[in-house]
């Protein structure tokens, strides 16, 4: 469904050129949940931004249903692909009520039955009507992230890009949000591309994953590989070891 071919992204700030992504390819099937892992600065979030047209793509192709994406992206693309951001404290406008956060995409994309859709979206993410006219500062981190998920879902997209959706939340809330995402995926047949540095989260959520290091794709693993700790490259072995060490002392 979503195919990335040899993607290259570089940021040019006049003096130095930073090659954030250097030739990454992967392929996401419909209904699949695909993970991208790597340490900070490995370019994993940049891949997601490049898919949305928010990072300067300098090479390679991004195909949706076999067709290259137009640049800039069309409104139709945004209806099919949505994104949930890492920090729920930064992804909601501080002066907008939840109601206006959710009604804005509907009015941009000219959806009908807005009231019902907003009510439905709030129920879907387990918030309910009582939250509709609150401001973000009246919500907790987990509740905010639910609103962000509702905002992504309200346009009824097929693909959702998840940029470390739980890393800013504490452990119990993390599980709640992950379960919510799991449920929504199975109910609606959504396709996920999920970025995380947390291997436990990825192995819980994703069938396949890509390991990235310094802008390069190191290797692709299946969930079974990850659980059996079958890694072909040194880097992945190191990464697995590091996460195991972390879990042992937890």
């Amino acid at each position, binding site marked *: 469904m979503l195919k990335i071919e040899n993607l290259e992204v570089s940021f040019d700030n006049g003096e130095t050129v930073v090659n954030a992504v250097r030739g990454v390819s992967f392929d996401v099937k419909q209904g699949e949940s695909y993970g991208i892992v790597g340490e900070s600065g490995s370019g994993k979030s940049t891949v997601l931004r490049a898919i949305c047209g928010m990072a300067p793509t300098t090479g390679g192709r991004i195909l949706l249903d076999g067709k290259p994406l137009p640049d800039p992206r069309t409104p139709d693309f945004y209806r099919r692909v*949505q994104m949930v951001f890492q920090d729920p404290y930064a992804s909601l406008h501080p002066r907008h009520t939840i*109601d206006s956060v959710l009604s804005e995409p509907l009015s941009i994309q000219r959806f009908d039955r807005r009231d019902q859709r907003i009510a439905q979206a709030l129920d879907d993410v387990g918030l309910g009507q009582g939250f509709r*006219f609150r401001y973000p500062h009246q919500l907790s981190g987990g509740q905010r992230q639910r609103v962000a998920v509702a*905002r992504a879902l309200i346009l009824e997209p097929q693909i959702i890009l998840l940029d470390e959706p739980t890393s800013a939340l504490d452990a119990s809330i993390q599980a709640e949000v992950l379960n919510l995402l799991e449920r929504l995926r199975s109910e609606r047949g959504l396709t996920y591309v999920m970025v995380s540095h947390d291997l436990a989260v990825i192995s819980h959520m994703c069938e396949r994953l890509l390991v990235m290091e310094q802008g390069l794709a190191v290797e692709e693993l299946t969930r079974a590989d990850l659980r059996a700790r079958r890694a072909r490259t040194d880097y992945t072995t190191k990464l697995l070891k590091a996460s195991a060490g972390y879990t042992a002392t937890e």
Partner: protein
Amino acid sequence: MTTTRDWLLSDRPASRRQAKLGQSYRTWLDFRTNALAFLGLLIVVALVLMAIFAPWLAPHDPLVGDLNHTRLLPPLTEGYWLGTDDQGRDILSRLIYGSRITLAVVALVAVIATPVGLLVGTTAGYFGGWVDTVLMRITDIVLAFPKLILALAFVAALGPGIENAIIAISITAWPPYARLARAETLTIRNSDFIAATKLQGASSLRIIWKHIVPLCMSSVIIRVTLDMAGIILTAAGLGFLGLGAQPPQPEWGAMIAGGRNFLVDYWWVAAMPGMAIFIVSLGFNLLGDGLRDVLDPKRQK
């Protein structure tokens, strides 16, 4: 028991209107705790009421005095509590009518300069690149003009009068707002909520107007309120130099100029309008400080 207060402070507002009113009410509660800011608000409200009800409040005609009987009466004279000027006009009445001119200057400058500054600043900040460079260099150029001197040149070219003074002040007043709005825009243009809005297919106009402007608004409003005092002083300065409001209009700056010739013997003629300018400027400054305390977006609660 549900009171209006509970309804306003409800954690679970049931409509858009309730959420909005509740938010304003919280800001108001916050503002009320600051005594000095409240004093500033009272002064400004008093100025507005004085301007609206001038014909009913003023005891005498502000333009025509009795040259035979009431010339240069000292303050606290029966019926002329602030004294009279050299043409026998009641100073209190002139001050009350003068508040209309002062308020008009302040309101018009705010209405002209604020939107221009916001528009230029947010556009420059949001688009960046050459748009930013061009707009901000223009801003820098205008910022380099000395306010009073440009106003003087402008009024000299177009002829003296309060309208031209307002235009001249507005032209020099907007650049600080543009800079402020641009700085605010730069801090929010790369935030996730703007990215999320872009991902919904929002146009640049929509993002600037609905997402960036509301966040710049509070700091600009604070700045405008604090600048009010300066604007009043500039208008009074032009009036004093004879380039603003023209006689017999009871403009405060012009009134000071009128009393200057006999300052030593009849001090009140110049001192009373001076007091009025002082009090109103102080009121706007106190109000601005108070607004900064409650509206500053960086002071997260």
